[in-house]
């Protein structure tokens, strides 16, 4: 089961403050769908201004990134620049 870490604000709004969750999914899209089933509305919230880090690699435009059974998937604020 992949380990998913939600941003604190999202965890508080949707998951009773719990940031760490175990989810089974083969890619980030499937993972977000699985989260949506548990926490309705979270998919829309995560699609706004969020990047995702899968095993340390940050993806700003995430969609179909592979998630392995032992992956760590972290949602972060999207990073802009100047």
């Amino acid at each position, binding site marked *: 089961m992949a380990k998913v*870490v939600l*941003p*604190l*604000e999202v965890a*508080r*709004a949707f998951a009773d403050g719990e940031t760490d969750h175990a989810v089974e999914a083969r890619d980030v899209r499937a993972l977000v769908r699985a989260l949506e089933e548990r926490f309705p509305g979270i998919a829309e919230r995560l*699609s*706004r*201004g969020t990047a995702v*880090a899968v095993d*340390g*690699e*940050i*993806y*700003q*435009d995430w969609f179909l990134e592979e998630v392995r059974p032992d992956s760590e998937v*972290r949602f*972060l*604020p*999207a*990073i*802009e*620049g*100047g």
Partner: protein
Amino acid sequence: MGNEEDIGKIIDYSGREFQYIGKRTIRPDGVDKVTGRANFGADFTVNGMIHGRVVRSPHAHAKIKKINVDKALKLDGVKAVITGKDFPEIDINDKAVGEVVVSYYDMAHNIIARDKVYYDGHAVAAVAATTPDIAEKAAKLIEVEYDVLKPVMTAAQAMKKNAPVLHKHIHTAGVEPAPEKPSNVASRTEFKLGDPAAGFADADVIVEREFSTQTVHQGYIEPHACCASISADGNTNIWCSSQGQFMVRAYTAKICGMETSKVKVIPAEIGGGFGGKTVVYLEPLAVMLAKKAGRPVKMVMTRDEVLRATGPTSGGTARARIGAKKDGTIVAGELELVYEAGAYPGSPVALGCMTGFAPYDIKNVSCVGWDVLVNRPKAAAYRAPGAPVAAFGVECTLDVLAEELGMCPLELRMKNAAVEGTQAPYGVKFNRIGYKETLEAAKAHPHWSAPLGPNQGRGIASGFWFNIGGTSSAEVMVNEDGTVIVATGNPDIGGSRASMALMAAEVLGIDVARIKPLVADTESVPFSMLTGGSRVTFATGKAVIEAAQDAVNDLKRRAAKIWDVDVDQVEWENGQAVCIESTQHKPLSIAAIAAKADKTGGAISGRANINATGAGPGFGTHICDVEVDPETGYVTVLRYTAIQDVGKAIHPSYVEGQLQGGAVQGIGWALNEEYVYSEDGRLLNTGFLDYRMPVASDLPMIDTVVVEVPNPGHPYGVRGVGETPIVPPLAAVANAVSHAIGKRVTDLPLSPPRLLAVIDGK
């Protein structure tokens, strides 16, 4: 090298000798820039063009009761007048999907006010006329009736209980349960690692300080400028300088209610951006005026418009608390940031939270950030947005900690340095990084051990920036004489064209002088994300490398045809196709193959459309020596050394230039730059005389040390370079001043009157 299977593969070139990478070539756009021929945003003229001027609010906070444009329209030579009413309504929840918080609603209202104005300089109307003078006169004839409201000019004012609320629809986000009453606090954000309370309980020493900074502007020398022309069928051309022609197209089309394909953006050379030109201000106004007038419209901002009405970066406060063991091991860190977003939400406070403690391996970290609305212009990105102020707080507090522990500040950082595998404050573990190497370079540098005299002090500080990847596209086109054109969609804000040519040369194996890199318009190259986030040499470079590899594959296929052999018999070496069976078939140069392009299938080219991942973070360590005149509070920067891990310097001169330029912007931020407002919210220093940026006589040479710890995510090891250099200087300068005067300074800028007050104990 150049084989089909190599495309997209991460090849480790670290330790390899490069043929072109690392050479200090003359930049291809250079001659035009030193002779005045290069065209920047304001240098374009279009036949039949007329001139636009903007009418701006003189009030920091007001309702617009009425706008009367009759007198202006009657003036001879006036061709069109627009107000917010001329623009389509945008849904309040409309945000750019997938990007950082980009609210189209906020952006559209910021460009031209609807029923309220939120800062001195907020655009309320615009006029186009046959001459700039008539446009200026017409602008003065537009009558706007305001219902003036009380402004809130600082976060402290904005957060008070009965403070006037800027936007009634904004309730603090990130707070549970969601508050009922609207607020000027747009959001709260929090990052946590481990158990900070337990960490602090375990500490032998705890230090805590609070710091403040003021609003500062990116300060690009070129004001915003554009020229827009729209045909009767709606096809629109915009010539402008920006950090992203595709961004200009997208935002302008959105705000004007047009289809993307109706808008073509032709990029001019850009005279500085630093993040401030990653948004649009004039383009939608020029397009609407052009539409109404039936003539092309040119608009150029004056300097006071730039300062009053384009995004500065957030001023704010940083409170840092650090707990450590007696031996210097940091066991807990806490950071609280309050940033002024300006008139609409979106300060870079979350990024400040994520970067402040990033150079350090701390198991227990808590970072909280508040995004606060004030009646100042909407903040825009400024080089490593959010990071300098956070680093100011953390790096100065580390200095205090070092003093408390009786430890060398460099050793303190060395002891706690983040390394590969360290978990950053935002939770992600670092890949290969070079922070420690910058500290080692600092320690070994003669600057670190040079003697100091009376009233002199030395400061050291470090900094971090993520650097990003993103969508980039490149086309590599082989001309019939074997020269090559490399087209990308990223404006060149620091010399990146030179680096694109070097990278293409390295792949193709031909002399860089035979490569012409160019920045294409929105209809000549596929979509590219804007220039920013220190991404171009990395991400667009990757696209160029892949496109060049694709071109090499095409060249090999043509050689195979010429020789009548299978393509797997062909290798590419030193700019030539080489046949494995080499007695019968002599090598073919790129020129020889190109000469037969028509016969072997048509034009030869390569392309790559990628979304680059694998960006490598950049760490920097700066050392600053100052002398403070105790009678005047005047600070002289005596010596400055900027050390940074750049992964691989494609063009060393331009890499050094980024370190020097960023350091000097930071020095200006630390010593002199600030927005000065009147009590009723009018910006008082609207020009370069009083918005005091560093000049040549303020500074010594800025020594640089380029450290190269290759980024495994890029074929040549490239890390983004441009933003990290502005992160350490605020603290490096402040720490130096603190040591020079023997008192801790915590409030920027350290301008003479402010510093004198600290020295005199006021």
